């Protein structure tokens, strides 16, 4: 099958004016499903540690770096909708409003923003995309953005001072570093085989 969506051949996500094209709808739903399936494969199994130690942030990185800002962000937003409407799509069959409003819920709400930022950076740097660039984009969107939203949320929910919440979040770093590396390797390989993103102007002209 010939990929019909090579950049420059057919109109991309931002072409043709209005809305999201049908293939984009399929892609968005497929990546939301990938995000769910990633929850079935634990990265590191630790009985006591909650949500953030899953491979699902890998889905955030993959959606952003393969689909781009808009479609990637929407795919992960759709995943969050699945959680909100009460489907057990988080690891361990969890889901529902309780997880989102709990102390670690900020990380889940940050997922779509993270995917959007990964996508935005990837689009800007698409022409010179390589493993190094991928690591940078994915570390910023797939880890930093999640911390910036998730940690203050946790500090407020837990009534902890922000500094304290930051230091206690250091436990997430090794797992997140592994996920950024795995996600970047996959993103570079997929870009070579099946590029979907249309590059954006790197500097506003």
């Amino acid at each position, binding site marked *: 099958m010939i*990929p019909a969506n090579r950049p420059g051949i057919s109109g991309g996500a931002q072409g043709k004016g209005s809305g999201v094209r*049908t293939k984009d709808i*399929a892609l968005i739903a497929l990546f939301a499903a990938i995000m769910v399936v990633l929850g079935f494969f634990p990265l590191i199994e630790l009985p006591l540690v909650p949500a953030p130690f899953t491979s699902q942030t890998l889905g955030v990185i993959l959606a952003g770096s393969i689909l781009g800002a808009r479609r990637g962000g929407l795919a992960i937003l759709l995943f969050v909708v699945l959680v909100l409407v*009460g489907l057990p799509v988080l690891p361990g069959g969890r889901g529902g409003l309780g997880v989102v409003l709990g102390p670690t819920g900020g990380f889940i709400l940050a997922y779509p923003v993270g995917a959007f930022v990964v996508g935005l950076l990837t689009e800007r740097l698409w022409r010179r995309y390589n493993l190094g660039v991928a690591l940078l984009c994915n570390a910023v969107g797939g880890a930093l953005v999640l911390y910036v939203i998730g940690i203050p949320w946790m500090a407020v929910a837990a009534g*902890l001072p922000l500094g304290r919440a930051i230091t206690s979040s250091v436990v997430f770093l090794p797992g997140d570093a592994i996920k950024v590396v795995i996600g970047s390797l*996959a993103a570079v390989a*997929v870009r070579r*085989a099946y590029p979907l993103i249309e590059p954006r102007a790197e500097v506003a002209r």
Partner: protein
Amino acid sequence: MLSLYHDARSPVHALPAGAKLLTLFAVGTGLFFVRSLPGLGITLAVVVALYAVARVPWRTAWGQLRPVLPFTALILVAQLVLTDWRTAVLVGVRILVLVLLANLVTLTTRTSAMITAIEVALGPLRPLGVRPERVGLLVALTIRFIPVIKEQADQVRAAQKARGVERSFAFLTPLLIKTLRLADGLGEALDARGLDAEPPRRRS
């Protein structure tokens, strides 16, 4: 995929989804202004009573609450070290009330009612190009795709195991490329079913 919804007939089930969600967000915000232990205690008692009214079995309620407990315990310990027991209890009970109430909304509201509530909430964004009526379709598509993706992942993993590849995430790249190929066909299938057709408009 089974939803977390627990089917029963109760006044809590009968409430409209939008009303339950608005109450949840109002209570969730209000909780942060309650600084008195008795006040929080009463709130907790009311929420527990609501579970009884909603006829949610204790086992189900406990199963939903349990994942939050280890983390809440960690927070309690941190609070005890950093502040006093009073603040620790205050924070702990606040988390419990919020999570219990949120779980209650999830347990007593059908997924379809929740989706409708989201579509209504997105209505005002229509001028920005948001199409709220697509939420239900996208959720349905995703639920349908989950077993498809799971099966593809299992296939790739089995094939790699047979060839002696042991790295646990080596299946990602082949899985992603298979998925992207799948999207080409699906896009055409959706087009053929007239997904993008404008809804018929009434003449004015």
